[in-house]
C-alpha cells in the first residue's frame, strides 16, 4: 500500500508524467479519428470512431507494460530495490505496489481518453453498466500486462533497453489486431494471428460491451471471434499465471 502511495505521490510531484501519459493516447485518438477515419469506410452507424475507441483503449492499457517496466528498471539502477529488499517487509510489497499504482494511473488515463473520445464523436450505445464493465475489463488487462512489465523491468539492464523491448512487444501486438483496421484486409495467415491475438479479443470484447457488432473476415465463427470476452479473460488468467510467479522468482534473486 505504501509503495502504491509512493507511486501516486511521485505522480503528483511530476505532473508531466501524468500529462504525457494521457497526451499520447489522446493524440492517437485524434490522429486515427481524422487521418485514417476519413479513408477507412465502414457501415458502422456513428462512423469509424466507434470502432476506433475500443482499439485505442486497449492499446493504451497495453502500453502499461512499458511504463511498469521502465519505472522498475530505473529503481533497480538507483539501488532502491536493494534498499527495499533489505527492509523487513513483504518481499512482494514492492512489485505488488507498483502494479497497483500503474493500474490507478490507467484509471485516470482511460477517463481522460473517454472524454476525448466523446468530444470527437464516440457514443457507446450499450448503457452505463456495460461501459463501466468494459473499463473494468480494460483495467484488468492492464494489470495483467504490468506483470509482464515487472519481469521485463527486472531482467533488463537499462531503462532505455526496457523502453525498446516493451515497444517491440507491444507494437506488433496492437497493430496486428483488429484495433485500428478490420482484419479482413490482411493476408490470411495474419488474419489467424490477429484473431487469436489477445489485443484483438480485448478489442472485440470491448466493442461488444460498448454495443457494437464485430466484423470478421476469414476467421468468422472461430472460438475467439465468437467469445471475445471469455477468451480475453482466459488470456489474462494465463498471463498472470505465468508472469506473476516468474516475476516473483526473478525479484527474489534480483541481484544474483
Amino acid at each position, binding site marked *: 500500500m*505504501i*509503495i502504491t502511495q509512493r507511486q501516486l505521490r511521485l505522480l503528483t510531484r*511530476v505532473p508531466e508524467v501524468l500529462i504525457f501519459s494521457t497526451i499520447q493516447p489522446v493524440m492517437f485518438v485524434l490522429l486515427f479519428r481524422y487521418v485514417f477515419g476519413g479513408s477507412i469506410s465502414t457501415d458502422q452507424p456513428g462512423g469509424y470512431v466507434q470502432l476506433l475507441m475500443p482499439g485505442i483503449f486497449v492499446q493504451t492499457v497495453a502500453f502499461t507494460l512499458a511504463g511498469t517496466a521502465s519505472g522498475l528498471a530505473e529503481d533497480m539502477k538507483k*539501488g*532502491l530495490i536493494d*534498499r527495499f529488499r*533489505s527492509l*523487513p517487509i513483504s518481499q512482494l510489497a514492492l512489485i505488488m505496489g507498483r502494479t497497483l499504482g500503474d493500474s490507478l494511473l490507467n484509471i485516470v488515463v482511460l477517463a481522460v481518453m473517454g472524454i476525448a473520445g466523446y468530444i470527437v464523436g464516440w457514443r457507446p450505445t450499450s448503457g452505463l453498466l456495460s461501459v463501466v464493465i468494459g473499463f473494468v475489463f480494460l483495467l484488468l488487462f492492464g494489470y495483467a500486462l504490468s506483470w509482464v512489465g515487472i519481469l521485463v523491468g527486472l531482467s533488463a539492464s537499462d531503462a532505455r533497453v526496457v523502453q525498446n523491448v516493451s515497444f517491440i512487444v507491444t507494437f506488433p501486438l496492437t497493430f496486428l489486431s483488429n484495433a485500428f483496421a478490420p482484419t479482413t484486409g490482411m493476408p490470411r495467415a495474419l488474419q489467424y494471428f490477429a484473431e487469436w491475438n489477445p489485443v484483438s479479443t480485448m478489442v472485440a470484447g470491448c466493442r461488444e460491451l460498448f454495443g457494437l457488432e464485430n466484423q470478421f473476415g476469414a476467421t468468422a465463427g472461430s472460438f475467439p471471434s465468437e467469445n471475445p470476452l471469455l477468451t480475453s479473460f482466459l488470456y489474462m488468467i494465463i498471463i498472470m499465471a505465468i508472469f506473476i510467479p516468474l516475476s516473483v522468482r526473478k525479484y527474489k*534473486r534480483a541481484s*544474483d
Partner: protein
Amino acid sequence: MKSVIAEDLVKTYRNGAVRALDHLSLDVEEGTVLSVLGPNGAGKTTCVRILATLLKPDSGRAMVGGIDVIKHPEKVREVIGLSGQYAAVDEILTGWDNLVMFGQLYHLGKKASIARAEELLERFSLTDSAKRPIKTYSGGMRRRLDLAASLIVKPKVLFLDEPTTGLDPRGRQEMWSVIEELVKGGVTLLLTTQYLEEADQLADEIAVIDHGKVIARGTSDALKKQVGGERLEIVVETQNIAKALEVVATVSGNKATLDEGLRMISSPVSTGATALIETLRSLDAAGIHPLDVGLKRPSLDDVFLSLTGHAAEEKSEEVEVTGRRKKAKK
C-alpha cells in the same frame, strides 16, 4: 559477542568465471567498527550484499546479530540498516517524504514515522532542506539522507558500503562526523571503503581484502607494525650527504637509502625517538645541520602496497561486478 560473523563465504558470478569472494571470513565485535578495505573489484560490495541478505553465497555461513543470514533473512532484515554506494532515495520526492515513507514501510504508523523522520533530519542537519526534492541536494546531503533512511528503526548492525565514494572532501568530512556520532551511540558498524584514510579514521579494526580474500586484519596500528616499524628521514645539504649516510646507517644498524632529488636519507629504525636523538647528536658532532628531520610511521598505503604488491588506488578503470549491475568506477 560477535555481531557479525562471516565464515568461508564463496560467491562466483557468470557460472564461476568471476570469483568475487574466495573463502572470505571475518567478524565484527559488538559495538565496534570494522572497516573492510580493498581496491575496486576486491569483493567488498559482494560481501556486504551477502551479509545484508541481498545475495545468497554459493557456500559458507554468515550470522548477523546472532541470526543466520541464509536461513532467516527476514529476521536479519529487522536488525540491520544498509546504506549503499548509491543514494537509494527517490529523487523526485523530498527528504521528508522519503523518510516518512520508509518509516511507514517499517510499519511505524504515520505519526511515529513523521516524528522519527523529523528527528533524523534534525540530527543530520537536513531540516532546512527537508521539503525540497532530493534532486536539489548535494552529493553529501543525499548520502546523509540515505544513511538516515537506514537508521529509521535504530538498527543494531549497520552496513555502509563505500559511504563517501564520490563525495568531495567537505562532504566526506561531514559524513565522517555523522558516522562517528553513530558509533558513539553504540551501533555495530561494518564499513567498506577504498580510502585508507577513511579506514584509519573510523575503524577500530581493519580487514584488508583483495581478490575476495582477507589478506590481513588488525588495528590500524597493528597493520602498520606488520609492515615494519618507523622510518627515520633526514634532509641535508648536498655536500653533507656522504657523511650523513654513514651516520644514519651506524645509528640505525640498517641500510640507509638516499633520495637524491630530495636529498633525503632514510632508514628503518626500531628504537624510534631514541634513534632520532642519537642521530642528531652524531650529526651535530660532525658539524652537520640537517635541513629537516622526521620520524615517519608507515601509512596504510605502505601497508597495502606491501600486502598486495600493488598500490591501493588503481587508476585504471576496473569493472566491479556487483550482481547484475555493472558499473565502472574511477
